[in-house]
């Protein structure tokens, strides 16, 4: 991807707060990122790190109340999605932004045939007639590698296996040629051999269709194989952002570094003992005033407890929200410049 390319999606300072009776939960805290055409952006984090909520917030899939979504802006196709009306959002969702959810069973409607569910967005958004929509549906099922597509249109979701259902979900998401596809843990519920099939399919589809993809997962192995750039989320914030090789070779945030050490591999050397990250992920009762990882961090020093680290640019398209500089093995002395630059987005310097 050229650095100068205009991003298709530009998220600036997104916040999501859930107001519940037992207090508020700050699930997403000033998240900024951009997505360029044709790239695959991986988002990793543990459960509760805010990765799903971020993506659902920006296209208005989080019910409000209880949630309050705010931010400087979510630019998509010359429009601010945060200010868009429900009608406008509805016209974008499924048409220009596709969504694939984690569990293929619960996200397909069991009482409609698969054919109907693929044709629905085509007829709604593309105003196709029945015959055209049908033809397109067969095409889509073939595209995602479902054999005997014509006949399978009449089948119901329960007649498909888990991997096949996920293919159907991807077919639905792709139906209207979206510019952006958001895939929320699309392979987590699947077995490894089926997951390998879906990842392969994703490689092919991206080569063919050239859409931008946001791939949410907690599996660093999946990310390593598929992503161009990676966002690491922790405690509702982006703690590190880098091109995929850079991230795995030179992780700069203690959380990423620890995470990479905790996962064993099926190849290479086997460690005698697993490294662990002691402690628990934070509970996000209030907007962060200190580093959210400080309680579990071995490099934590005074500044981390008093200030929430902004994202520092460390070069090579890499930034990290940490006061500790691993290159200097000591506290970071860089000026706090990254913030303004990042908030402005990559393709939007003014």
């Amino acid at each position, binding site marked *: 991807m050229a650095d100068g390319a205009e991003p298709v999606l530009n998220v600036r300072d997104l916040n999501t707060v859930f107001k519940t009776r037992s207090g508020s939960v700050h699930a997403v805290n000033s998240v900024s990122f951009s997505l360029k055409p044709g790239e695959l952006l991986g988002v990793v984090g543990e459960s509760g790190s805010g990765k799903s909520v971020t993506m659902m917030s920006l296209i208005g899939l989080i019910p409000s109340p209880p949630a309050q979504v705010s931010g400087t802006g979510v630019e998509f196709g010359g429009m601010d999605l945060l200010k868009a009306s429900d009608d406008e959002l509805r016209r974008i969702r499924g048409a220009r932004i596709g969504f694939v959810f984690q569990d293929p069973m619960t996200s397909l409607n069991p009482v409609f045939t698969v054919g109907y569910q693929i044709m629905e967005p085509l007829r709604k958004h593309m105003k196709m007639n029945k015959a055209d929509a049908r033809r397109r549906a067969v095409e889509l099922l073939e595209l995602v590698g479902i054999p005997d597509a014509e006949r399978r249109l009449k089948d119901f979701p329960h007649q498909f296996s888990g991997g096949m259902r996920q293919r159907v979900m991807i077919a639905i998401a792709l139906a209207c040629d979206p510019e952006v596809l958001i895939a929320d843990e699309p392979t987590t519920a699947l077995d490894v*051999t089926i997951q390998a099939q879906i990842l392969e399919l994703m490689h092919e589809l991206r080569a063919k269709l050239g859409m931008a993809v946001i791939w949410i997962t*907690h599996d660093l192995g999946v990310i390593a194989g598929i992503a161009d750039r990676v966002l690491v989320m922790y405690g509702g914030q982006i703690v590190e952002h880098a091109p995929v090789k850079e991230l795995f070779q030179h992780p700069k945030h203690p959380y990423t570094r620890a995470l*990479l050490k905790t996962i064993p591999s*099926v190849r290479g050397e086997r460690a005698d003992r697993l490294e662990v990250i*002691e402690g628990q992920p934070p509970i996000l009762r209030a907007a962060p005033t200190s580093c959210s990882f400080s309680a579990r961090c071995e490099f934590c020093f005074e500044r981390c407890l008093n200030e929430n680290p902004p994202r520092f640019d460390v070069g090579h398209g890499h930034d990290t929200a940490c006061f500790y500089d691993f290159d200097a093995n000591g506290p970071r002395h860089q000026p706090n410049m990254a913030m303004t630059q990042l908030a402005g987005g990559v393709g939007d310097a003014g």
Partner: protein
Amino acid sequence: MLDETNSGNVLVEVRDLKMHFPIHAGVFKKRVGEVKAVDGISFDIFEGETLGLVGESGCGKSTAGRAILRLYDITEGSIKIDGVEIGPTPQPKLREMRPTMQMVFQDPQASLNPRMSVAAIIGEPLDEHTDFSKKEKREKVLGLMDAVGLNRDFANRYPHEFSGGQRQRIGIARALALNPKFIVCDEPIAALDVSIQAQVVNLLEDLQEEFGLTYLFISHDLSMVRHIADRVAVMYLGRVVELATREELFRAPKHPYTQALLSAVPEPDPSLEEKVERILLEGDVPSPSKPPKGCNFCTRCPQVMDICKEIDPTGKEIAAGHQVACHLYADT
């Protein structure tokens, strides 16, 4: 860790274990078939070792684990734990033997009673199987909490006040309460976050060393199994297709299914990832109620031969401690 040459004492001996579940249909609930969840598996588990049992969902690995502890009435086969045959033993009699064999369940949320305090949960096996006084029991419970790394002060709290990893620790403490010899861990880390998984796996390893435990570690996570298991059995559609030591299995897998399974695991290192040769399997696992004729894997096997569609391969020992059920290795 045990030598491959079967020198240790066999603690668990499983022979031709079958667990079929009937399918009933129609108005009169006539028996129309059966789901062959576990269809004739045999293996030994040596004292003090960890046997990993891996496979994809629906391959029967959890059923196998539960059947070995006789949580089901098995269809056929023999199970010997510590020299005692428990295959045909009726359930009331089994109860007396339960202290030697325990289980850690997958979902720590569902396997803990929300209305019982942690102390009551961990102490329940003691109520049933020992005549400890109240004070002794309390001591034992607190000791167990120390052993699994739970703060003693939390003894009177309820499961919902704990995180997933801590709840799994409660489940482990409960399993340890009666000083068992053998513990079946059924996907103990599947419901946990990556950073917490490592904590629980390390705990299981420490406890094994401390109490001399023997584990059957059931998991679909091959990289974790590689870490914790001494030997690994790979299941596919109710059968064990390959059984070998950890080193052997991950270095030189023999069965085409094991090869495909290992190659499908994503590599968390992009520079290594590019070198991994993927074997992509076509299609899905057949239904265990209608397994294919011949080898169970013949419908998806990339190296399928004519004989595979006719004759079911039996497990063969191709090297010391390395068993494979595949026609490719029929002559060796």
